[in-house]
């Protein structure tokens, strides 16, 4: 009364089948290696798929991805009228102060249209690693350009944006003690972006002209005749 159960043993694939599937697997792996892995990992893009899929950006990301922080509205681009640059809106003011702990850095940048101008002065209570630079928004080469790169303790100047993008400073505290930096600027910029070394980013509000009030006149004195 014993019942027999038939166990079907799968037929092993023939050598030719194994060879065929192995070759197919190797070809697929090779295609993936060339089209996806190499562009993404090493920016090697022999067939152009990395650029097409945006994978080469993964291998070599820019140190500070450009963020278009420009608000909606008319771009603050100048129209040149002889020596006069005319803008569609008022300029803005900004005061930025930060204390960098030992070895920390910060980037502080304004969005400026090509040809737009700003004035600035900044001071630090100790020398800092400094790079005044700009990053293009919307493509173009080079993506980033340095205008003044050297250790400094203070600087005053003006900047006329050579291209539309975010323009401003990289400051790094190279020493073991905190350093305070204070920047005052005015210009035809539309927004400000702060990037700290802990990767926190924030867009800062700018001061419109109406926040300025006249300096109170000194009370009538005895000066003059």
């Amino acid at each position: 009364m014993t019942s027999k159960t038939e166990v079907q043993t799968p037929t092993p694939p023939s050598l030719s089948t194994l060879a065929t599937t192995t070759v197919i697997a190797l070809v697929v792996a090779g295609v993936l290696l060339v089209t996806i892995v190499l562009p993404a990992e090493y920016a090697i893009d022999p067939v152009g798929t990395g650029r097409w899929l945006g994978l080469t950006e993964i291998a070599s990301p820019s140190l500070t991805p450009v963020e278009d922080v420009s608000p909606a509205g008319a771009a603050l681009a100048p129209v040149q009228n002889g020596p006069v640059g005319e803008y569609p809106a008022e300029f803005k003011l900004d005061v930025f102060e930060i204390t960098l702990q030992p070895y920390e850095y910060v980037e502080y940048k304004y969005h400026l249209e090509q040809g737009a101008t700003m004035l600035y002065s900044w001071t630090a209570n100790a020398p800092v690693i400094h790079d005044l630079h700009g990053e293009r928004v919307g493509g173009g080469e080079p993506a980033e350009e340095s205008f003044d790169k050297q250790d400094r303790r203070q600087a005053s100047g003006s900047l006329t944006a050579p291209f539309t993008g975010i323009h401003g400073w990289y400051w790094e505290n190279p020493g073991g003690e905190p350093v305070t930096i204070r920047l005052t600027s005015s210009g035809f910029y539309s927004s400000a972006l702060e990037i700290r070394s802990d990767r926190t980013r924030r867009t800062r509000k700018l001061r419109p002209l109406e926040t300025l009030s006249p300096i109170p006149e000194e009370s009538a004195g005895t000066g003059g005749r």
Partner: protein
Amino acid sequence: MTRRLMILGMLAGLVVGAAPAAAHDDYRIIGTVTKITAKTLDVKQTKDGKTISMRTDEATLVTRDKKKVSTTELKTGLSVVVDARGDSLEDLVVLEVRIVPSPTKK
């Protein structure tokens, strides 16, 4: 047919899976070395006391006073400034380790 669909699904997964890597970013970790192995570096951050564990590789550069030094110079207790790249604080590869003097206590 099912097998072809599975293969297509796996290929699609590979391509989609590559997308999160696009979030690679650069991080600066400032603190004290708490542990070091041939492939990892742990640093306790000065600012919040949190320990960040990072991977090192053959491209990792170790410097002191702007000069390249051997990785064997890294010891626990040393103050360091680490520049690393990755998707998050939990997934970082060390690019450069600077051995620096201990910051002045605030």
